[in-house]
């Protein structure tokens, strides 16, 4: 990338001024306290300005910023975004040390470390609080570490503030970056911890009773994928109301509820599955999407209707219109899904969302949109805006797939439509997540969710528009309590079975001296304002449009001293005049390409020898927006790519992030652009090993068994059932004979009985993954005429195994 080299940002032997990143998490109860430390060092002979864009959790309430430099500790403060930049820029011009952190997206931040003198070192520390993701008895911690290349439509890129565009599309390297990650988690649970696992990284874990310490293992760990930690507790989460003192002595409360809604049943629905088939999904991501989709399809019931939309820079529907769920449509869809590839180029998510916003479910069934994506788009705000329109008659249940998914987009879309999001790391099992999403859909029957504050007076409730209640999922609402008295708050809702009421005890007498609750409350209120407004906050264009929403965000953010789209953190280190004699040169810190992104890494392993070392790809886009991922689709339409393959060089192979590693110029992924092109990616194709699941034969025995279930819930007497049951064929044949009637029907009854018995016998520990499948089979069985009672036949099946 010429501009990058011309700017001296990275190539040409310049050392990357960022030396390492260290993340410390302290989590207990319902919230986590995270500190991110970035160590910068200028090893050049000229002063530099290091600019580093990095991701944080989208719910992060960033409330602390300090810099350690030359033995001094400088504490930053929150200012209006433009004012903060002015202070920073003025300090830079006067030769002072200047430090700035901007929020470019709710999950993308940029640190500018200005006037770092030769040999000078600075440690920048950001601290934030975040809600923990809790469901039933589990907790999930997801910490992003890199910014995946994202697709920005041409018209959006052209209108964006170039500085903002530069921040959200940082230079990306596939060969590893010369700074590494340290990460540790200290977790204190309210009860015994039953299990803890880290599917993303090798990690050492010390577990004792209620506490666990986790640390990443090894040195020079790359910041190239999300850190994921799953914790299972011995008991389910309990409802709670945490009261803390707000700055002015007023009390702020965080009310947490984990409702039991297992009695709710889902009625017939129209399901629209939207599958991201853009280039970035290549490799494991599209495989996971296919598997999740196949599994989801099998979770539908007779009476439902469905359609599948694949999107890239164009989108296509599987059926002309939604079709009724039946054996033939299930078979047809399964066949087509097995052949789905990540070959549709860019990520124009907006087009299918717009299409859905303009069309209603024909049969007036409630519409459930199941979205499978890595979420790597740059026009999040527009997508959220359309989602808000969709909310009137549809809900989005998002699946974020891959090593570095955009949490903000997937959660945001789900939140905007009263749906829920799940994230699937490549090393995680899909089944429980798909099942959980489907069981959440029963909540569609709930209406009118409210909070009954009893005698309490509040002047702020966040979010003001209450979210949906889901079975076992954490439901959280914050309130600033300005008066009144009560010892109980209740969440209420209307259900088909009558009014529901979930009381939560509250003790206002002993407010904790905990800043986390007020800060989280402010962040939640700001998040709602940022998303409700729907504009491109952060861009110069909308910054100038001072309106009520922005002033409210500013007011909250300044008062609670947290970052937002309207505020930045700034710190200045006053230096004596004459310390600096020349202007600082910009050094844009490159980020690591997300592991597995667009199957780049897999392709490297496969085709290393075939590819020339350090081959450089010229992006085949003559036109388009600024920054990295250019507006591929339109450009691609007028200039079909000759060889749109990012040339995997040996530099792309995963290398250790040793201190001396000098990223090779050729590894700068100018070629990432190729992935958003229309042309079918040969690399992705090559990287796609003919895995078992690709050939239609799932590797997981449970998946293998359940995929032989028919649309009506019954099981065919297939090889997979026979194999899994290991039952004696003679016994089976005898049973079929005894059942009598139509032979095919008798076979199905036998097979269904066997399948249910196998699930109980072999997969009892994975009940949450197959419960829905078993329920469907049971319902089918109950409609069959069995000569003796169903119970007898069930015990026959058990004994036959």
């Amino acid at each position, binding site marked *: 990338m010429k*501009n990058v080299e011309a700017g001296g940002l990275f190539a040409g032997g310049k050392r990357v001024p960022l030396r390492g990143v260290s993340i410390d998490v302290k989590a207990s109860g319902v919230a986590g306290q995270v500190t991110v430390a970035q160590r910068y060092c200028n090893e050049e002979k000229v002063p530099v300005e290091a600019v580093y864009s990095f991701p944080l959790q989208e719910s992060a309430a960033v409330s602390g910023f300090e810099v350690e430099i030359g033995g001094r500790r400088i504490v930053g403060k929150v200012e209006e975004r433009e004012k903060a930049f002015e202070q920073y820029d003025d300090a830079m011009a006067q030769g002072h040390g200047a430090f700035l952190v901007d929020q470019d997206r709710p999950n993308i931040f940029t640190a500018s470390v200005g006037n770092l003198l030769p040999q000078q070192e600075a440690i920048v520390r950001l601290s934030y609080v975040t809600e923990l993701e809790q469901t039933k008895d589990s907790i999930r911690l997801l910490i992003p570490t890199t910014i995946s290349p994202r697709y920005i439509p041409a018209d959006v890129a052209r209108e964006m*503030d170039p500085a903002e565009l530069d921040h959200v599309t940082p230079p990306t390297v596939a060969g590893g970056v010369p700074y590494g990650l340290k990460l540790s988690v200290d977790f204190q649970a309210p009860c015994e911890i039953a299990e803890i696992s880290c599917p993303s990284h090798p990690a050492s874990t010390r577990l004792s009773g209620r506490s666990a310490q986790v640390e990443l293992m090894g040195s020079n760990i790359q910041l190239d994928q999300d850190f994921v930690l799953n914790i299972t507790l011995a008991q389910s989460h309990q409802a709670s109301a945490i009261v803390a003192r707000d700055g002015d002595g007023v009390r702020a409360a965080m009310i947490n509820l984990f409702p039991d809604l297992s009695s709710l049943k889902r009625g017939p629905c129209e399901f629209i599955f939207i599958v991201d088939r853009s280039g970035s999904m290549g490799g494991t991501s599209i495989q996971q999407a296919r598997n999740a989709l196949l599994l989801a399809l099998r979770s539908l019931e007779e009476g439902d209707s469905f359609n599948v939309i694949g999107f890239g820079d164009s989108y296509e*529907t599987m059926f*002309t219109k939604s079709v009724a769920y039946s054996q033939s449509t299930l078979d047809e869809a399964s066949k087509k899904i097995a052949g789905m590839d990540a070959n549709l180029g860019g990520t124009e998510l907006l087009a299918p969302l717009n299409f859905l916003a303009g069309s209603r479910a024909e049969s007036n069934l409630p519409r459930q949109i199941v979205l499978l994506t890595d979420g790597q788009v740059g026009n999040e705000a527009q997508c959220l805006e359309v989602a808000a329109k969709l909310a009137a008659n549809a809900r989005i249940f998002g699946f974020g797939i891959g090593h570095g998914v955009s949490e903000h987009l997937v959660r945001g879309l789900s939140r905007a439509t009263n749906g829920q999001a799940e994230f699937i790391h490549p090393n995680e099992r899909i089944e429980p997540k798909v099942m959980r999403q489907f069981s959440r859909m029963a909540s569609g029957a709930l209406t009118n969710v409210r909070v009954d504050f009893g005698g309490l007076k509040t002047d702020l409730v966040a979010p003001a528009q209450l979210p949906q209640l889901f079975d076992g999922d954490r439901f959280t609402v914050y309130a600033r309590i300005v008066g009144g008295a009560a010892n109980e708050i209740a969440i209420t809702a209307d259900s088909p079975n009558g009014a529901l009421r979930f009381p939560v005890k509250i003790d206002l007498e002993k407010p904790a001296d905990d800043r986390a609750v007020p800060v989280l409350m402010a962040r939640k209120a700001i998040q709602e304002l940022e998303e409700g407004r729907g504009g491109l906050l952060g861009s110069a264009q909308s910054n100038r449009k001072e309106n009520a929403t922005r002033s409210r965000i500013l007011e909250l953010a300044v008062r609670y001293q947290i970052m937002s789209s309207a505020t930045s953190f700034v710190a200045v280190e006053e230096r004596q005049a004459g310390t600096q004699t020349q202007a600082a040169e910009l050094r844009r810190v490159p980020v690591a390409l997300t592991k597995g992104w667009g199957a780049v890494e897999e392709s490297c392993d496969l085709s290393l020898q075939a590819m020339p070392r350090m081959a450089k790809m010229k992006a085949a886009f003559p036109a388009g927006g600024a920054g990295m991922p250019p507006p591929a689709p339109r*450009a691609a339409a*007028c200039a079909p790519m000759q060889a749109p393959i990012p040339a995997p060089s040996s530099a792309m192979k995963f290398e250790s992030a040793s201190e001396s590693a000098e990223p090779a110029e050729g590894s700068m992924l100018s070629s990432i652009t190729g992935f958003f092109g229309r042309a079918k990616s040969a690399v992705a194709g090559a990287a796609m090993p003919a895995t078992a699941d690709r050939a239609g034969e799932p590797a997981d025995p449970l998946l293998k068994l359940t995929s032989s279930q028919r649309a009506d819930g019954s099981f065919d007497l297939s090889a997979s059932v026979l194999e899994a049951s290991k039952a004696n064929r003679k016994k089976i044949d005898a049973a079929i004979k005894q059942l009598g009637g139509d032979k095919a029907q008798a076979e199905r009854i036998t097979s269904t009985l066997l399948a249910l018995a196998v699930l109980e016998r072999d997969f009892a520990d994975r009940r949450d993954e197959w419960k829905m499948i078993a329920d469907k089979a049971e319902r089918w069985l109950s409609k069959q005429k069995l000569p003796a009672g169903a119970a007898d036949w069930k015990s026959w099946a058990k004994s036959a195994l």
Partner: protein
Amino acid sequence: MNAEDADAPLLTIGQLAEQTGVSRRTVRYYVQRGLIDPPVGRGRGSGYTAQHAAQIQRVIRLQREGLPLENIAELPADAAPIPPVVVQPQLIMRLPLADGVRLELDAGASVPDAKTLDRLAEACRAILSGDAANEFNHRPFDDGHIDGEGTV
């Protein structure tokens, strides 16, 4: 810079941003990328001129015309205007009508409603199965748009 400008008072970065309708961040970004000249002077006395404003306006114009910033930086300041890039309509939607037959709709085209699409699909299936004459005789299109075309 010409002699005339030399006497004019320097603009602060804030004034330049205001005048050109971009943010301060953008002005700085343009300077760092070599898209516009660095400010005149250093430290407190530094500033910008009308020529900087003209340079910014040029960058914005070229960017709007679809030229990537990296190309703008390479372009001589007095280069002839670039003809606008021809953008082909982007394919936005593909619908299956029958086996191996798809309907493609371009950007800007309004998507027909589900009922129309449904009839279109049925007609296609009928034509493809060689059954068209019968199909149309028995199920004429009520809006009469393809009257007379039914007999193949």
